């Protein structure tokens, strides 16, 4: 038995040695080609270094980041992280439409494309362009407040108003922590009757502001099933 334990120790050492001996060859075969073919941070640094300087010259520290419409984020994530790494300390915010300035990655379409809510300011080259949201033409409406705490069925929404504009960045939390984002735009206010347009559902919320303008109760929306209403309290 004592000999057997010595033999086992020898086998363990042999296994460790075999694994260690094989690894450099595996790395050489599997990874050298992979890494040499892959665009890594070094090549991104060379390509996008000048872009960072151009953005810094404009005094930009925080931008939105978008890709062509219809693209799948998972396929674009690696590029985003490499570009973010290269452009740091400029922050690229990928999952929000809140920012006035937007860095558009148009590498898939080969040339900057028109975006509904943005205008092209500068083609920065290498598949990136700087876009800007035009000043919102909706005049400041004090009744809209700053933040709406909204509820529709099981969904709890938070609508944050973008500056003095009529546009809200909205997030809803549902059961099991599911979260969705969308944009809500103010359309009209006649007396106390208010209408807002939701971009993602392409439908309108209609409701009646309370006399003190602090809430909306029992509102309707075009896509709601019968019996469902929405309500909101308005934070000034």
């Amino acid at each position, binding site marked *: 038995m004592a000999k057997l334990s010595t033999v086992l120790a020898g086998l363990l*050492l042999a296994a460790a040695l075999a694994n*260690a001996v094989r690894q450099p060859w595996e*790395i050489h075969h599997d*990874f050298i080609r992979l890494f040499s073919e892959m665009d890594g*941070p070094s090549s991104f640094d060379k390509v996008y270094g000048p872009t960072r300087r151009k953005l810094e010259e404009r005094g930009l520290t925080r931008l939105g980041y978008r890709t062509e419409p219809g693209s799948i984020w998972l396929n674009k994530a690696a590029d985003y*992280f490499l570009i973010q790494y290269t452009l740091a300390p400029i922050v690229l915010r990928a999952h929000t439409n809140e920012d006035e300035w937007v860095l558009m990655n148009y590498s898939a379409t080969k040339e900057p494309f028109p975006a509904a809510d943005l205008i092209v300011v500068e083609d920065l080259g290498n598949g990136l362009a700087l876009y800007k949201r035009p000043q919102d033409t909706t005049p400041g409406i004090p009744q809209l407040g700053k933040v709406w705490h909204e509820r529709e069925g099981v969904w709890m929404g938070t609508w944050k108003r973008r500056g003095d504009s009529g546009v809200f960045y909205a997030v809803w*939390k549902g059961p099991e922590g599911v979260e969705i984002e969308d944009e809500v735009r103010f359309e009209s206010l006649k007396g106390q009757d208010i209408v807002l347009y939701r971009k993602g559902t392409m439908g309108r919320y209609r409701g009646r502001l309370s006399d003190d303008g602090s809430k909306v109760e029992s509102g309707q929306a075009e896509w709601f099933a019968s019996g469902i209403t929405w309500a909101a309290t308005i934070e000034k």
Partner: protein
Amino acid sequence: MIWTVVGAIFSFALPAFGGWMIVSTTWPCGPKILRASLGTGLGLGVAGMLWMLGLLISGSAMAGLAASDGVLITLTALLWTRRARIERRVVAPPPGRFSKLQIGAAAGIVLTLLFAAASLGLMAYISHHGDFDAFAIWNTRARFFYLAAKPLDLLPDLTSPDYPLLLPSLVARGWQYSHQDTVIIPLSLAVFFTAGSIVLLCGLRSVTSSSAAPLAGAILAGTPFFIMQGMSQYADIVMCFFITSAVTVFCVSDFAGEGESGYLPLLSGLFAGFAACTKNEGTLVVVSMIAARSCMILWNRRWKIEGIRMGLFLAGLAPGFLALTVFRRVAPVPSVLFANITAATIRTRIIDGARHSSILAGYWRDLLHFGNWWINPLVLLLLYVVIRRGLKSAPRFTTAWRFPGLLVVIMLCGYYFVYLFSPYAVVWHVQSSFSRLLVQLWPSALLFWAFLVTPEAQVDAS
């Protein structure tokens, strides 16, 4: 280039020397190899944690540097002037000549370590920026901290903003010394934490005189996934080093008894605190260590001495806990995993059989294959324990295996519950993370194995 390298060397020198002084003060009779690897890791942990704390409190990277290096210099100077002249006990080599078997085994271990070093070098050469998480999370944060005028303003916009900041703080601190965001700093850290974990296991030979310790080190060096993760500059290997260090020093304290090794639980607490400041699962490490030590108190029934050790451990934990608390207050981001959990979710998940099977299937698959081994050593490790402990002439074995064994089991249970209540698709969540969590625990599991086959007569750290 030369000044960049000089800066990088200086950025390591102070933490290494300061850490050496702290470890030498708390464990004056410890072997040099362990004091060196533990000391360097401790110094880097202290530097990263204080830099992070300085940044969080003041909002400035320069204040971070002043906090980390100011405290390290003061502490080092204080310990240097008060250092005791202790007659070092020389660990004499075993008397007589080495047998051919022993020489062969030593040669095998050295060869294994050399090939592991070759793998480290090759990975550093072909992928010096590391893999995805390195540039997507850790080094990008470091760049923000190093380059931005107001780094704290950017915290909410970072990817995974709930991740603690010790590692990026350490990288940014190194860049401050080098005066540029050179890849030398994260690469050197990756090499140290990977090689340091192996050295820790092999170095236990000097306190246990058991051949199992270097064998465990060789098995770790022969784990391809461990080497790859380390050189990918992922935070998992940094975590792995801190966990291994925390467990190692507490184990040494267990078999050393009272005396000059009495303050080792304090060091263990410090390392556990660093783990909590590195990744979110570090908090689970801390909770698991406290649970494992509580079990040890009940098991050993030496209330007073175990109570004192637990107190020292908690005292060591305090700085890390403080830094983490400040981070959570400055960046109050709800936990992605637990923010939306409700009593109803808990009830549903507990009775969800399909979810349990998915997690268990993932556990089974990854527990067997996480190392990406060519020759899987797990069965051999198990057989060796059975044979060694089953020998008729088997000596009395040390009980130092209890703590690492308990910790690994509690951690695995903890991960199980995290997956059970995770908001993500469970199959994807287990598949994408469990092997990396296992690699954090792998050296501790090997430590557990080494102590299982180490006779009591061979452990002595007094």
